[in-house]
């Protein structure tokens, strides 16, 4: 094509141009943006635009367009009849441009001629705002400078003053404490924290509290959740089989710790995307790569593992776009992006970085695990070997593997082996590779996987009798007994470079089977170039966090803002492209983005900056006079009331009840859920074994996420489905939520716990107890009217209960010394009211 076009241009001479055969110039005053730019975009820029410049010609910038292509100027201002561009599009030459699709119409050629004859007027368009370099604007001056506590306030107030709106008064101390506690740690303040804060009269009492909260280990839990949404974290594979991922939590464990120690966001990024490639890589940076192990895995029988490996690779690229760049790069899977400067080729270049990765699990012990484990290993190994030899398993496995290898290498020769091989490929990770490698070179985990698959699915390959003869069931039982005695050691799902990476191709129309051109890793032409010599995934990660990158910091601070104010400065926090919303405060966003980098990418510093601003500290009460002018509170003339996310609603109830288990990190838990929920999994295969002991009361963050049958309370309160990166949750309000909070045994138990606390920890009459109840649930005292209403309800309930002994026992089975049981039971009912208050599940 290139040669053809060149030859064509070279063959042309002005003398051969025949003006008479050209369509006449349009008889209008041409406007570039109206008449010409859309035409160029539609018909020319695919080959002569930012992405590629056939024959060296580029038509999306004035200077380049006038300079022309490989053989000189194609546009001669004022002389349309002599301009090569016109001759080619008019089809008077042998060669016609564009070479594919319909020819330009006479009208279109006429417009182009008029445009050239009228002097090639050009309106240079600035790149889309988010592709422009991040600025560090000076905070604007404001009239009410006393109000502003830090630069954030200058930006907010300047805008408010321009609109003639005064900010709201500062929220009450109690509201503020509850707000900032929930925002920073996800936990309401304890009664002690409330009174300490009230009694602290130092001018910086609030800032001191903020610093304490930032240092709390629960800070990492709260802020891990929003990142887990983006990581599409789950404890199971998804799809039909939805097999458990017993070590997924190890990534979450790393994440909480990384956030608690305020791992700078650039390092945080590099470790998750390329922790395996760092020169100083260690177990921690490897565990970080678990971010991208959270993609779904399809193990459904009969599926092609390659198809779903491919899906994972593409999802990793799309997730990178959404999470770090706020770009919907995944839209370019089937075709060039319709709106943003992302070509299909660029999408596959981006995904090529991930195409060379291979999933594997590594041993990743938590502190204290390794010693006892290593001490016990020699004996375990000896007994295991003896067990397997006793049952002649090594010989049996050799035959098993030989048959599978035969089927892998010569499919179709043994139908019955093929089925077993197919199932094998869905059971063992990197199955084919492991099967075909020298058994002596297999890692310990690979050896274990081979043994497990043999013992677990012997019957797929052999008649039942053969497996019975081998006593595979007995071996499994005895092996499990041995393993149970071995001190536990944790593993982690990670991604490493594949030693034999597959090639990467463009998928024609997004179809994984239709290979187009081969692609090498690369980024987007519309963004700054990669640093020289920095190839590979590590280079990609470093490029993302380079100071020149216009998107990463903006996107990251916008999410922090969103987490604290309920909506982003860019509302569409997942899309900073042309289809996304524009920032409500562009200068503020840039200021924050540049500060973030200047402050060493410290997320905690940014959070501190935001929550100590006067903007944050405003009351959240609605302002009817602004309802029409600013219904969505985008000007921040007040704070917003935000319904808490699913996990925090649970945490709040259990915390009020004194039941919450505050241990940090570790494995996922299964709190009680009604029978029939897990049974809706494929063939009822998911078993929900309720956690015992205090594990039942761990924070919502630790609830095991089974993708096909997730824990109901999470889904009822808008937790994402963990299939794609989610950057912002909905906050819906449904009757199912009401029923959940009223009747879920978990919340009922919380009400019982709360009542017990009220009885145990508060003394005196009803009013004293009610005050205490309000303090530990809402962090404030009841108003006189509330106290009166609650008193009325309490009296009515107690007298109703006195008539129904069974109900009393159901509400509160124990008899507390010195208190009539009906009274305690009435407190359970009153506690249920408290735990269902809108205020209780809302951050005011």
């Amino acid at each position, binding site marked *: 094509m290139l040669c053809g076009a060149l030859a064509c241009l070279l063959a042309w001479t002005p003398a051969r141009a025949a003006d008479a055969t050209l369509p006449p110039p349009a008889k209008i005053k041409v406007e570039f943006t109206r008449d010409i730019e859309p035409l160029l975009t539609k018909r020319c820029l695919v080959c002569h635009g930012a992405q590629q410049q056939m024959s060296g010609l580029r038509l999306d910038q004035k200077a380049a367009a006038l300079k022309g292509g490989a053989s000189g100027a194609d546009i001669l201002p004022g002389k349309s009849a002599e301009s090569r561009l016109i001759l080619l599009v008019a089809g008077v030459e042998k060669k016609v441009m564009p070479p594919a699709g319909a020819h330009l119409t006479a009208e279109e050629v006429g417009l182009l001629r008029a445009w050239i004859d009228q002097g090639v007027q050009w309106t240079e368009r600035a790149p889309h705002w988010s592709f422009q370099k991040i600025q560090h604007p000076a905070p604007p001056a404001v009239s009410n400078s006393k109000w502003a506590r830090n630069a954030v306030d200058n930006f907010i107030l300047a805008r408010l003053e321009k609109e003639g709106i005064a900010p709201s008064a500062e929220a009450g101390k109690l509201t503020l404490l509850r707000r900032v506690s929930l925002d920073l740690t996800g936990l309401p303040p304890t009664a002690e924290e409330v009174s300490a804060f009230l009694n602290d009269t130092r001018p910086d009492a609030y800032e001191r509290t903020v610093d304490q909260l930032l240092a709390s280990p629960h800070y990492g839990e709260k802020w891990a959740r929003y990142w887990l949404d983006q990581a599409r974290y789950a404890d199971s594979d998804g799809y039909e089989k939805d097999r458990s991922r017993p070590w997924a939590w190890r990534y979450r464990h790393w994440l909480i710790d990384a956030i608690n120690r305020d791992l700078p966001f650039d390092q945080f990024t590099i470790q998750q995307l390329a922790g395996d490639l760092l020169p100083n890589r260690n177990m921690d940076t490897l565990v970080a790569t678990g971010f991208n192990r959270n993609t779904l895995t399809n193990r459904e029988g009969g599926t092609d593992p390659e198809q779903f490996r491919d899906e994972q690779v593409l999802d990793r690229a799309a997730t990178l776009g959404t999470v770090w760049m706020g770009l*919907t790069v995944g839209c370019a899977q089937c075709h060039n992006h319709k709106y943003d400067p992302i070509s299909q080729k660029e999408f596959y270049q981006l995904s090529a970085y991930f195409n060379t990765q291979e999933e594997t699990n590594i041993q990743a012990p938590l502190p204290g695990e390794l010693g006892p484990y290593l001490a016990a290993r020699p004996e375990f190994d000896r007994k295991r070997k003896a067990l397997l030899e006793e049952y002649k398993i090594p010989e049996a496995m050799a035959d098993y593997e030989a048959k599978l290898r035969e089927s892998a290498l010569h499919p179709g020769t043994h139908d019955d082996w093929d089925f077993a091989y*197919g199932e094998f490929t869905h059971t063992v990770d990197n199955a084919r590779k492991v099967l075909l490698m020298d058994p002596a070179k297999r890692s310990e985990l690979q050896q274990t996987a081979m043994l497990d698959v043999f013992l677990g699915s012997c019957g797929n390959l052999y008649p039942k009798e053969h497996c019975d003869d081998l006593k595979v069931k007995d071996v499994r039982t005895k092996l499990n007994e041995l393993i149970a005695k071995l001190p536990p050691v944790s593993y982690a799902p990670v991604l490493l470079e594949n030693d034999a990476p597959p090639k990467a191709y463009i998928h024609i129309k997004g179809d994984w089977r239709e290979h187009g051109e081969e692609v090498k890793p690369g980024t987007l032409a519309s963004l700054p170039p990669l640093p020289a010599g920095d190839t590979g995934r590590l280079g990609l990660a470093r490029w993302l966090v380079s100071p020149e990158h216009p998107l990463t910091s903006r996107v990251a601070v916008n999410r922090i803002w969103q987490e604290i104010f309920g909506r982003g400065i860019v509302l569409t926090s997942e899309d900073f492209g042309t289809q996304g919303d524009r920032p409500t405060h562009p200068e503020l966003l840039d200021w924050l983005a540049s500060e973030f980098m200047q402050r060493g990418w410290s997320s905690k510093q940014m959070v501190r900056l935001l929550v100590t601003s006067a903007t944050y500290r405003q009351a959240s009460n*609605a302002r*009817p006079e602004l309802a029409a002018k600013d219904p969505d509170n985008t000007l921040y003339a007040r704070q917003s009331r935000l319904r808490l996310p699913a996990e925090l609603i649970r945490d709040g109830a259990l915390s009020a009840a004194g039941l919450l288990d505050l241990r940090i990190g570790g494995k996922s838990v299964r709190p009680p859920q009604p029978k029939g929920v897990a049974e809706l999994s494929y063939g009822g295969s998911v078993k929900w074994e309720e956690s015992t002991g205090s594990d039942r009361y761990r924070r919502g963050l630790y609830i095991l996420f089974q993708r096909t049958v997730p824990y109901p309370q999470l889904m009822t309160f808008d937790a994402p489905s963990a299939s794609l990166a989610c950057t912002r949750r909905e906050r819906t*309000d*449904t009757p199912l939520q009401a029923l959940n909070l009223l009747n879920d045994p978990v919340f009922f138990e919380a009400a019982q716990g709360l009542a017990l606390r009220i009885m145990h920890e508060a003394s005196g009459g009803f009013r004293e107890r009610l005050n205490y109840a309000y303090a530990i649930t809402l962090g404030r005292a009841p108003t006189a009217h509330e106290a009166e209403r609650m008193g009325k309800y309490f009296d009515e309930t107690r007298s109703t209960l006195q008539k129904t002994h*069974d109900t009393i026992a159901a509400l509160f089975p124990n008899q507390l010394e010195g208190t009539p049981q009906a009274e305690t039971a009435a407190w359970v*009912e009153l506690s249920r009211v408290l735990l269902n208050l*809108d205020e209780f599940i809302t951050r005011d």
Partner: protein
Amino acid sequence: MDLEQFRRIQSRRKFFKECAGGIGTIALAQMLEREGRAAGVEQNPLTPRKPHFKPKAKNVIFMFMEGGPSQIDLFDPKPELQKWHGKPLPAELTKDLRLAFTKPNAAVLGSPRVFTPHGKSGIEFSDFIPNIGSCADDLCLVRSMYTDAFNHHPGQLMLFGGSIQVGRPTMGAWVLYGLGSESQNLPGFVVLSSGVGTSGGSSNWSSGYLPSTYQGVVFRSSGDPVLYLSNPPGITREMERAQLDTLKDLNEEHLASTGDMEIASRISSYELGFRMQMAAPELSDFSKETPETLAMYGVNEEPTRQFATNCLLARRMVERGVRFVMLNHASWDDHTDLNKKLKTHCDTADKPTAALIKDLKQRGLLEDTLVVWGGEFGRTPMCEIRNPRDANNAGRDHHPLAYSLFLAGGGIKGGQVIGKTDDLCMNVVEDKVHVHDLQATLLHCLGLDHTRLTVPHMGRDFRLTDVAGNLVPKMLA
């Protein structure tokens, strides 16, 4: 601002009424505005809404036969297969064929089923489904369905979400989003399941990136019909009322002090929950159904009990204004032992299916209700033998290229067959209907244009039919 003053302000704004909403209303409002349907619509995302044009049906009952029922043995007679029985198909038919488990050169499995014509229309059905056959004149049998996916979960995602990607909104959610709910005290999109759990699980009734208000609510066969519907032990309705009144008063007080309309919305959600507690048990109380009705469905007998109960529930839901009922019945995935297993499935499903259609019809509900019966794909003409040591256990593999399903009711022209497959049921040869076309037609019957029912997400407008789908005019009455 005191409570009274606040109430005056709000009543002027007409905000207060039943605005069980939340932030999802923003997307809804945007959609309605762009579609020119915004006028007069309240903030509640479930408020009934006018469709794009005059609808033929108001409700949908989607009888999802999970796993892929064998069209060759039920709906699409292929005597020619007998001649090929035991031999591989002609190579030109199986070129480039990719199936889940079976090799393209696998031997053909003829069907031992006997097909007879039914009704005035004379549509042929297999001897395994005589009752469905007896509804022939009301059914539009499509023998020319095809889809893009040959595995269960991707196939189900395709059928309900319009794409093999996980995370899209599903059919029921789209319908609820488009039309709202007629029922004030039952969920608008209900899921009923019988048999075993499906491959797709909750992804088949997910609201995807529509607000979770639109996701399917599982109606359970044991325990509470809706999760957490029952009060804790010992709590009477009266006690609950007193509790909710207290809650309401306190919430209203907080509403007065904060002015946050979300609180009003939450108050009405609790009231709706309260009404649902009455309505859901009433729904599953069959004591007022006649013995004839119960017998027609087979509610009190095996092997129909489970599916029949769900079919009768579906009718009762439609009567009470539930917009979309999804009846999952799993599983028809007969890779092995087809002849025996298929008989069992049909014995379970045939009678209740027919009873539901006839019952809807005799009550005048069928004209407002669109009924769909079918799976995510069909089954191959070739046989699959999982265990070569047992020659009698032949089954069929997944077949995405040609399969059958049927529709009945609102907007559908009954008593007809659409489409043809080749003599070996390998490919569709006439009137191809892709699942996207089915989706487009289903929405059309409800008065919705599938190209206009969209939700903005990740920078573009998404729809049930992805970027495809054509109305199938032949299906329409």
